């Protein structure tokens, strides 16, 4: 599903060049649930941004579902993001003046799905995350866990190839974190490919594979026995 070869990325910081990713080789199969771990500054967010086409790579190659991702202009990148990827953010990033259902329906708007179908699909995915009754509520009326579940429903709504989650439990307490992880595991059970950045060990062990990043290189890449979040809920 994801194929990365010899990926390099550096940032210009004034006169100094900061080499963030120093040759990453990495691939993800369909249906995997991968945790990317590392301390801050290890390059894990940069990697996720490149995977999410929010940032461009300097060197190397990136293939997503057989499509080479290279030299994309903004329009093309937007198109690919919409088609291939679903994002889940640490700070949820819901649009505060739109209801839960409208937020979920938004990626479908950019897929040019008709209004009626959008609404139906939004309700369907909200039901899947257990928030059907909250469809008409604004984000400000929801708890943190509920917001993240709406965000997950939104990421799912576009039916992407890969879900990218950047510290999805970073802003939640542990109980809520496990609820969200439970949801993510269930989505993965249905065959969705999910990449998740975290620095929490227990969250990482709820995935099927852990990739450790340190100073811009992968230092460890192992398959783990998945801890089901269900038991903590």
């Amino acid at each position, binding site marked *: 599903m994801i194929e990365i070869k010899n990926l390099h990325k550096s940032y210009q910081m004034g006169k100094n060049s900061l080499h963030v990713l120093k040759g990453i080789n990495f691939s993800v199969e369909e249906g995997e649930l991968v945790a990317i771990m590392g301390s801050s500054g290890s390059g894990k967010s940069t990697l996720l941004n490149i995977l999410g086409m929010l940032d461009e790579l300097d060197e190397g190659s990136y293939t997503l579902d057989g499509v080479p991702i290279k030299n994309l202009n903004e329009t093309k990148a937007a198109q690919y993001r919409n088609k291939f990827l679903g994002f889940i953010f640490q700070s949820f990033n819901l649009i505060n003046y739109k209801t839960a259902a409208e937020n979920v329906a938004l*990626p479908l708007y950019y897929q040019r799905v008709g209004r009626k179908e959008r609404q139906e699909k939004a309700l369907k995915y909200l039901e899947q995350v257990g928030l059907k009754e909250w469809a008409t509520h604004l984000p400000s009326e929801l708890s943190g866990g509920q917001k993240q579940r709406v965000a997950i429903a939104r990421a799912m709504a*576009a039916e992407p190839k890969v879900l990218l989650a950047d510290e999805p439990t970073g802003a939640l307490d542990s109980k809520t974190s496990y609820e969200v992880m439970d949801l993510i595991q269930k989505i993965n059970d249905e065959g969705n490919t999910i990449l998740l950045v975290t620095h929490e060990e227990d969250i990482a062990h709820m995935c099927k594979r852990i990739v450790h990043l340190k100073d811009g290189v992968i230092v460890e890449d192992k398959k783990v026995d998945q801890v089901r979040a269900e038991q903590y809920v």
Partner: protein
Amino acid sequence: MFDLERWQEIFDTIRKNKLRTFLTGLSVASGIFILVILLGFGQGMQNGIANEFEEDAATSVWVWPGVTTKEYKGLNPGRRIQLRNENYEFSANLLGDRIENKSPRYFVRNVQVNYGKESLAYGIQGVSSQFQFIENEYISKGRFLNYSDEREKAKVAVIGNKIKRDIFKDTSEPVGQFIDISGIPFKIIGVYGDVGGEREEERIFIPISTAQQVFNGADHINNMAYTLPPADDFETAVAQSIQFTNELRAYLLQAHTVAPDDTSAIQIWNPMEEAKRFYTLMSGIKFFFWFVGICTIIAGVVGVSNIMLIVVKERTREIGIRKALGAKPWSIVGMVLHESIFVTAIAGFAGLIFSMGLLELVGPHIEVDYIMNPSVDFNVAVTTVFVLIFAGAVAGFFPAWRAARVHVIKALKDE
């Protein structure tokens, strides 16, 4: 533009950001409102001035002799000019085809006026039969002087309403009665009124020929008055009356051997020239109104672009989210502009309709001197609205474009 989905998205946004929409709209609507009202009153003042001068027998021309101030052809300055019948008749012949009404006037001075035993203190003026129209007098009883009174030097008099009230009270009938002027009985043939008020009704008119003969006037006249036929429009009227004045002045200067540049020897008062001055002033005022109006529009545009700037800034995070979800840069620009153009257009036309409605409703009821029926050229107003919409769009484009180019990651970090 005709994308229904886009419209729905924009209506959603507007519905949920009422205050923002309201403020943008208010700034645009008030800009247009102020401009239209200003332009309306500019036009109203112009109408008012034109009306003021047209109404008041504005085509009249008055000639008063004075004293020469310049030496000319061996004649000393300080010579008093005396108008004579021949001047009047000659001018009438010379300019006759351009005169509607004309009258010489002779003031009868130092005479005793009596009615019965009462002594009266009213001015007596010898005039022609057409003087009625020059002064806009209306007849409330009997008739005004006529041509045969003049020819026969009849001893008849027309008195003003005020005089009638003063000495005949309301009961008795003045027409047919006699007043004594210097011991000579004059028969009252009519009573006139003047829209100018009581001061204008304190005069006793007798035929000029009678006045000159009976009161030793010889062929002297004190002044001359003319009215010119009405012209099709104000501009022609002004041009026509200035031309008339110049020719009349030229003749009189030459007839009395006065230096051409001596302004005090023959004075000709022409309200049209005054009107012309008002008109020049008016175009100044109109220019000023336009200036203020355009400044208002500029303020409106600046207001709109400010709001757009804030709106885009406020929505940076939202734009980032939309981009992460797959919005293309142009769809972001389109969304922001579409909303701003829509709001500006609705607000602009609301301001336009409201202000024009106000002018329509209130305009005809305004009864102030020099302001009449303020109104505005619809095309001008509509053009202004479009200019404002266009300017608002241009002003909104750059922040929108910048916002659309902002890196998603940066936009998402924006608080």
